[in-house]
């Protein structure tokens, strides 16, 4: 979908991009990562022609982008920046509607877009549409920043360290939301970060850059298992085994893999029955393609469920999730910080790998202190 062909860029004598070629597929979540100054932002900005390369060509859907008017090109490519850049003189609604208005959408159409998008991120229209950016929290502002980029349904969205300035908890939930939106809306996303954690969690493909060159382009697993260069290893730091070869503990090392999962289409009665039989008070709910959809609790069913209805209506997405390759430490921190009794461990394709419960955590800590324990 996006094809870089021998792209080079230099300022005076300093070469910023050095003959870069790679291809991004439709619907792919590509993360550009690398040390500061390696050319990530420059690469990103060549896609919407905020920066023109000195050499090489970029094709979007086979079309050379220099043949497209840059202003029109940018209206078909969403753009989110770290500084957020919501226009402070415009309300949330006006900010989101900027591009649809530039494209001369009629008022009812852009209003509907604003409504739908705000709903998508759980920010009720009545409450937020007429607020100004200065009246929102940082996380809320960047949610609107993301919605502004999505408003004219661009097939491609570029994001330059969009969560870099947010606190860890807000960043976590925005990462989830963006990943979720990307899947749901089937966007192609090019995302810049220098946080390996974030890259591993979000990416379908990671492009590791150094000094204007691509060092490795691979899936997160591949990158973890076969880093092509020592600098990648050093970048992954705690995601890798340490020097003395003591294996580093990941979330997957602590999870229980036997978990109760039910499809979204299950009915309330069968879930209650299953819960009481297995003596648990919540179940993990899966989408049709086996990816994680949310959880359903016995309280929710009792409070709102009607007999014979599908549980999809009672789904909660509040449960904490974590990627299986994430540091175990992270999992524990999240578990302790949340009110829940477990965190859900996900595979790359968002299917459920397992659960880390307070019990499995205690056991792990015990093992660390007193050696292997009988299970």
């Amino acid at each position, binding site marked *: 979908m996006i094809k870089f062909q021998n792209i080079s860029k230099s300022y005076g004598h300093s070469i910023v991009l050095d003959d870069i070629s790679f291809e991004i597929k439709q619907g792919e979540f590509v993360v550009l990562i690398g040390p500061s100054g390696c050319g990530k932002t420059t690469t990103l900005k060549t896609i*919407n022609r*905020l920066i023109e390369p000195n050499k090489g060509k970029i094709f979007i859907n086979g079309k050379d982008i220099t043949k497209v008017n840059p*202003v*029109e*090109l*940018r*209206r*078909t490519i*969403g*753009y989110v*920046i770290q*500084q*957020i*850049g*919501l*226009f*402070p*003189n*415009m*309300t949330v609604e006006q900010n989101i509607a*900027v*591009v649809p208005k*530039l494209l001369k959408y009629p008022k009812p159409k852009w209003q509907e877009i604003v409504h739908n998008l705000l709903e998508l991120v759980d920010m009720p229209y009545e409450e937020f549409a007429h607020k*100004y*950016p*200065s*009246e929102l929290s940082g996380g809320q502002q960047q949610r609107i920043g993301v919605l*502004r*980029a999505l408003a004219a349904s661009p097939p491609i969205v*570029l994001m330059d360290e969009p969560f870099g300035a947010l606190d860890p908890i807000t960043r976590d939930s925005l990462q989830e939301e963006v990943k979720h939106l990307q899947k749901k809306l089937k966007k192609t996303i090019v995302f810049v970060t220098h946080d390996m954690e974030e890259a591993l969690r979000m990416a379908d493909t990671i492009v590791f850059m150094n000094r204007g060159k691509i060092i490795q382009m691979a899936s997160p697993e591949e990158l973890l298992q076969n880093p092509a260069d020592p600098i990648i290893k050093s970048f992954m730091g705690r995601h890798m085994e340490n020097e003395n070869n003591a294996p580093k503990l990941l979330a997957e090392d602590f999870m229980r893999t036997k978990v109760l999962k039910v499809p979204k289409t299950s009915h309330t009665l069968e879930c209650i029955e299953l819960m009481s039989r297995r003596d648990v008070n919540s179940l993990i709910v899966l989408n049709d393609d086996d990816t994680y959809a949310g959880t359903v609790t016995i309280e929710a069913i009792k409070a709102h469920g009607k007999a014979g209805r599908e549980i999809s209506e009672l789904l909660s997405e509040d449960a904490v999730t974590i990627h299986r390759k994430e540091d175990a430490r992270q999992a524990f921190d999240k578990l302790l910080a949340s009110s829940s009794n477990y965190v859900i461990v996900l595979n790359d394709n968002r299917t459920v790998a397992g659960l880390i419960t307070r019990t499995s955590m205690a056991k792990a800590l015990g093992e660390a202190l007193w050696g292997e324990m009988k299970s």
Partner: protein
Amino acid sequence: MNFLDFIAGNYIDIQLSLLRHIELVGISVLIGMMIAIPVGIFLSRHKRMSGPVLAVAGTIQTIPGLVMLGFALILFGIGRLPALVVLSLYAILPILHNTFTGITQVDQSYIEAGRGIGMTSRQILYKVELPLAMSSIISGIRISTVYIVSWSTLAGLIGAGGLGDLIWTGLSSYNSNYILAGAVPSAILAFAFSGLIGLLQRMLMPRGLRGVRV
């Protein structure tokens, strides 16, 4: 004769001078705006030219008003025209300066966001830069207006009318009532304009910008 009696006696004259004065100020600030705002916008797009242009404008500002009026008198003769030319020139600098800095100080991230989502540079100007610079531009207009209210009193010297007339009459005939009748209203006028424009500035400021750094 005390001052109040004097005012009562010359009420019509004073009122006429006041109106004349307001007219002088209004027209020259308006002309100043019509020149300074477009030039300020132009300079913000061509920053390399801003240094020299602002320097020239600054120099004009430092030429004493009487000297300028003298030149204008030579060039345009006596009456309102030379006064308006000189006052408009003086009105330019504060507005020009504030338009230029107001626009160039708009945070780069808004401009980058605007460009990145496909605004043309004209759209960025009208939808982002000017609204965000508005407060600074208006305060330039306010400064100009207050200056021009006081400088307009000089214009009486070359027959442009206004409160200056009263002051000069008073000075040449040692009549303090005339002087006060010109000076007091012009001081009040300066305060009134300043307050009014300040009010306008606050009214025009969108809620989202209050207390926000732009």
